[in-house]
């Protein structure tokens, strides 16, 4: 199995060596949720255990004192995006943290949610504080296959063909209707629509690929190369020793602006407390609880107690939807 994060690890090693030689360049590791940045930080911590302190940004919101008293020369700050809130006065903790970076002689290795990073880079100029940046790259189909099959012998798993019935019934050209008022009467005007999924499905069938090839190509497409999402979908498909190809393309998202904004808040944190959602949404006259319930009903977030989290399988379509609305830049 090809070890993951080799490129990232070699860059981090270089940053650490440079720091040892007196050249300090704080590092930002940027990724979408579920990319496995914690796994990367585990490996980094393993390399510099004696000289580092590892901390989640959540514990720095109230005060940075905890860092002042710690002995490590290298500081790993996970989920650094949690230091800001999208409210008036919500940048205070982040500004304190960035000011501390300017005057500290320690090396900071930080992880960031990519949506939050892009937002904060425009609002606060984050990039200037982190001369070294690494964006965790998407995994290709072969890499996903290698990652997921690494624990199995060749031929151990049987890949079943997908259910063809519904797929084959899908037509490439469909008719949709739109209501239009004409001379006081409401008319439904039909117009043709091309079903892109159906074209893709027909092309896949015509290329005569093996069931495992079809499965992993679809998995890579639906997960958008995100290893965390791919792993989750793999677990759902695996019914040892069989792998069912029941992967479904995520449905298109139809949300109002307010609902989309709430989704962008959850996405930019990965998971958000309902109290935080209330702080952002209540001044706008929007009930956070109602919107969170609606997003859960649509299969976009899951609510566990007081925390709303992005659902891995909805990540790709949520990102596409929010980028289209320019709520995520």
């Amino acid at each position, binding site marked *: 199995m090809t070890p993951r994060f080799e490129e990232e690890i070699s860059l981090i090693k270089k940053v650490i060596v440079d720091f040892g030689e007196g050249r300090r360049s704080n590092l930002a590791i940027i990724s979408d949720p579920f990319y496995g940045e914690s796994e990367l930080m585990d490996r980094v911590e393993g390399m510099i255990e004696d000289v580092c302190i590892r901390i989640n940004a959540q514990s720095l919101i109230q005060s940075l004192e905890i860092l002042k008293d710690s002995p490590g020369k290298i500081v790993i700050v996970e989920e650094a995006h949690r230091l800001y809130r*999208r*409210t008036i006065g919500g940048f205070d903790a982040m500004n304190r943290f960035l000011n501390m970076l300017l005057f500290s002689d320690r090396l900071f290795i930080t992880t960031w949610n990519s949506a939050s990073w892009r937002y904060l880079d*425009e609002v606060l100029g984050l990039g200037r504080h982190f001369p070294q940046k690494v964006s965790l790259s998407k995994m290709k189909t072969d890499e996903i296959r290698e990652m997921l099959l690494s624990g199995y012998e060749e031929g151990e798993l049987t890949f079943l063909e997908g259910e063809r019935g519904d797929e084959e019934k899908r037509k490439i050209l469909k008719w949709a209707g739109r209501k239009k008022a004409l001379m006081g009467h409401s008319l439904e005007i039909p117009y043709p629509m091309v079903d892109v999924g159906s074209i893709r499905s027909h092309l896949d069938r015509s290329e005569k690929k093996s069931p495992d090839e079809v499965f992993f190509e679809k998995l890579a497409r639906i997960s958008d190369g995100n290893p965390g999402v791919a792993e989750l979908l793999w677990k759902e498909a695996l019914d040892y020793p069989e792998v069912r190809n029941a992967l479904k393309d995520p449905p298109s998202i139809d949300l109002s602006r307010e609902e989309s*904004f709430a989704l962008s808040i959850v996405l930019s944190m990965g998971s958000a407390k309902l109290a935080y959602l209330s702080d952002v949404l209540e*001044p*706008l006259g929007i009930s956070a609880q109602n919107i969170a319930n609606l997003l859960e009903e649509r299969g976009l977030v899951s609510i566990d107690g007081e925390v709303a989290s992005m659902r891995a399988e909805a990540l790709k379509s949520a990102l596409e939807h929010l980028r289209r609305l*320019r709520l995520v*830049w």
Partner: protein
Amino acid sequence: MADNSVAAYSNLSGSANVPSNIPDLGINSYTVINALLVLALAYVAARIAVFLLTALSERVYEHRITVKMTIPIAKFIIYGFALYHIAGSVFQLSAVQLVAFWGIAGAAIGFGLKDRVAEIVGGIVIVLDKPYQVGDKVTIEDYYGEVRDIGIRATRLVTPDDNLVSVSNQQALNQILANANAGSQEMMVVIDLFIDSSSDASRAMEILRDATVTSRYVYISDKRPVTILLKDYPFYRRVRSKAYVYDLRDEFPFETDVTKRAWDAFEAEGIEPPKAGVVDLGGGSAIDS
């Protein structure tokens, strides 16, 4: 006597050899109906094109303005093709007939239709020169609104109060015109808040900046920065935010959102509005920052 007059009438009406200086344009009821049918088809085609392009522009949200830009072009092409078809295929005008047609058309234009022709030419100039496009927010002759349509004859704006204003294309070209976004999806919105001179202006600027950058309508990039400005007047201060909305249709919701949240925070921090009657609401000059 009666027989003679019948014969004379027969001779006149049946004469194919009566000399005439008027060229035969070949216009009969069939060609007129055909021409009207072509125009009707062009009208339907233009409506369908507008409908499809509008629907497409909402689907490709980030390129909305670019797609909408093609709507007037499509309409001019459709109507232009219809007129070409009527002249060429329906009436089958020869060179002589074309000269005669343009002679008559020239006279008609000279006497009564010059304004209509100027409007059509104005429409073509607007489409080619692009002083504004469908989807832009413009001010024409004291009317501010979103351009909904650039028609053959007139440009239609929808004002913030949902009034439909029609300005002839010729007039629109002759006016001083202000275009708020010039074909771009984003648009700058200027928000002014006035505070009492004794209030903490620095804190007010911080709050207004936070309110602006946390708005759900804001769009920030290197080319679209947020700027907060302060201006001192004799009895009050103006805190101004200049920022971009990601969809120009959100201009007023953005202004409302930022103003409401900023004032809630001002009140919480003891930042007060100016005393009654001291603010000059005459507006800033063109060079005002």
